[in-house]
């Protein structure tokens, strides 16, 4: 079955240190993949997307993600965390089951410590 797995439900980092949010997908081929961010009481905003072009994708606010087919991973990174990065992050992909749905991970809540 298709799935997107976010390996950590909560991640805490200190301000100025690197951020790593992990996402693995299941698929027999290379799907499109997305990372979204959600600040409290807001909707989801697209951070970046992979669509089978470059495997290293750069997004907004200094985030980037690397598509690794051999590891079926699409981890989100940022070299230096800022307090404003505290939010919930979702990894997602389109379903390929003949519908127009999307499959979302369960989310990772990022906490940034001063």
């Amino acid at each position: 079955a298709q799935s997107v797995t976010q390996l950590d439900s909560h991640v805490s980092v200190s301000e100025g240190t690197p951020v790593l949010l992990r996402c693995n997908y299941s698929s027999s081929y290379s799907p499109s993949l997305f990372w979204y961010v959600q600040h409290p009481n807001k909707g989801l905003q697209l951070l970046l997307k992979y669509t089978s072009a470059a495997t290293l994708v750069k997004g907004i606010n200094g985030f980037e993600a690397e598509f690794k087919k051999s590891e079926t991973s699409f981890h989100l990174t940022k070299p230096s965390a800022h307090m404003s990065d505290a939010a919930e992050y979702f990894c997602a992909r389109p379903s390929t089951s003949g519908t127009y749905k999307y499959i979302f991970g369960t989310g990772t809540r990022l906490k940034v410590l001063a």
Partner: protein
Amino acid sequence: DVKVTQSSRYLVKRTGEKVFLECVQDMDHENMFWYRQDPGLGLRLIYFSYDVKMKEKGDIPEGYSVSREKKERFSLILESASTNQTSMYLCASSQKYRFATEAFFGQGTRLTVV
């Protein structure tokens, strides 16, 4: 700038009331979605629509119905609101060719049923 607009940010309704949540998109997207988001449960798809007057049930359609009379507007209806429908509701839209295209989200409606 692309826009998905939900009619209310916060809503308080009484048990048994009929509740309408409205969503409008200005991107001429074919697909529209309604999700609910609850702590620890991630995003769960209620209904989606891939064309005017077309709809399909998502994962949790019970207690909800939808209406799509115009391409840009997708309404979620709670026929008789109950306290277990207290939640954050998110509307989204996407282009028909989903494999490389992301979903765009509204700002969310936080519904409280008392």
